[in-house]
């Protein structure tokens, strides 16, 4: 399939259309709302499901490949903030602390983007290795430490408390836990949960992406006017830079197209759950609205609508047979 066909196939899939519906509804200020408690529960469900599936698929994965991929992910998560920080500081007048906080978001990952990309890959027949779930988990935290390094010495920080909060962050614990449960129970476990975690998964994703569209759109409506243009641009070119770095890493360690596209997506995506919370604790002076609007309101829709098909197309060409 060519890039254009891929893009079209992605764009007219129900999950992406429901995301667009949410975006549009927020733009016209509709009062459509998915209750917060349910949105959180949907994300728990999706993380459990994706973790579990990854674990089940570990039966057919090589541990050496997994270790290599995890290593590559850690390096990417650690390195990308330095690039993001440098670009922000040279192209915009963003202060040091704010730039460091934004950079940390870009080094880390968006698990929802990962889930949407996995789903798109499955629909395209480009399934990824099970260990990509572990790569996602491994890429969440390193960027936070890069961010702290970039911000320089801050008063009153408690490093130990922060490490613990980040390491035992809910979505990481759940993703890794579900991954291990899937790995441990394999196909017999899969049989038990198949209708819930496999069959209805894509439908639930539609409902969840409707909410993500609403949230992203509301954030944009509320904040976008306050963000300077070079910073907004950062939210559009940074995923492309991240994806390019992810592609290089995938080439270096010889990944298959499905896994490579996911590594690109992870590198391209920006955190909007774990990192914002960590930044409030570690860099309280950074303004939270800027980084969150950027990662959730700009980079997230960009990846979902344009990025993911692009990454699959490029991965197909560069890593494919």
């Amino acid at each position, binding site marked *: 399939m060519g890039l254009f066909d891929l893009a079209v196939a992605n764009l007219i899939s129900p999950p992406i259309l429901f995301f667009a519906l949410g975006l549009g509804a927020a733009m016209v200020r509709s009062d459509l709302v998915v*209750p917060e408690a349910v949105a959180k529960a949907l994300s728990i469900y999706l993380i459990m499901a994706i973790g579990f599936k990854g674990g089940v698929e570990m039966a057919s994965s090589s541990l050496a490949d997994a270790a290599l991929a995890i290593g590559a992910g850690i390096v990417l998560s650690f390195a990308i903030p330095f690039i993001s920080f440098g670009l922000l500081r040279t192209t915009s007048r963003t202060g040091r602390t704010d730039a460091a906080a934004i950079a940390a978001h870009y080094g880390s990952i968006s698990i929802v983007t990962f889930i949407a990309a996995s789903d798109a890959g499955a629909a395209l027949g480009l399934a990824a290795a099970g260990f990509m779930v572990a790569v996602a988990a491994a890429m969440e935290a390193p960027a936070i430490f890069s961010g702290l390094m970039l911000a320089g010495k801050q008063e009153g920080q408690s490093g130990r*408390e922060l490490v613990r909060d980040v390491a035992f962050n809910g979505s990481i614990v759940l993703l890794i836990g579900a991954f291990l449960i899937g790995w441990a129970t394999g196909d017999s476990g899969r049989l038990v949960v198949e209708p819930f975690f496999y069959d209805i998964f894509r439908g639930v994703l539609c409902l969840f992406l409707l909410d993500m569209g609403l949230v992203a759109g509301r954030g944009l409506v509320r904040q976008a006017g306050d963000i300077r243009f070079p910073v907004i641009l950062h939210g559009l070119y940074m995923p492309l830079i991240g994806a390019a770095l992810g592609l290089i890493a995938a080439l270096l360690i010889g990944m298959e197209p499905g896994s490579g596209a996911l590594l690109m997506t992870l590198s391209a995506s920006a955190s909007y759950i774990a990192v*914002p*919370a960590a*930044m409030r604790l570690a860099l*309280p002076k950074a303004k939270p*609205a800027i980084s*969150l609007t950027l990662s959730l309101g700009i980079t997230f829709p960009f990846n979902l609508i344009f990025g993911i098909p692009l990454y699959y197309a490029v991965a197909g060409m560069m890593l494919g047979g």
Partner: protein
Amino acid sequence: MDTTAKKKLEIIIEAPMLDRLCRLLDQLELGGYTVLPAVSGRGRNGSWSRKGEISESQRMYVLFAVLDARDLPRVLDEVYAIVARQIGIVTVSDVAVIRAEHF
């Protein structure tokens, strides 16, 4: 019914800091406190709303504690040390309580 004069301390605090604030208050051994969830608001950092959010990072909680005026100074000092760096505001007001033995 007899009432006794007390102080009501109210702290609006961002979600990521709530646990640390509670741990601090636990150490200070106050009589007690209660936490209420807020759903939206606006301040100098712009507006926020819980509508459909899955991240807690932007939300605020309102913690209040009814306490003795004598305990107020030390509590305010400690609370200020935390809140100064974070997003949050602290107010104190006068209340009367029944069942003073509770506090």
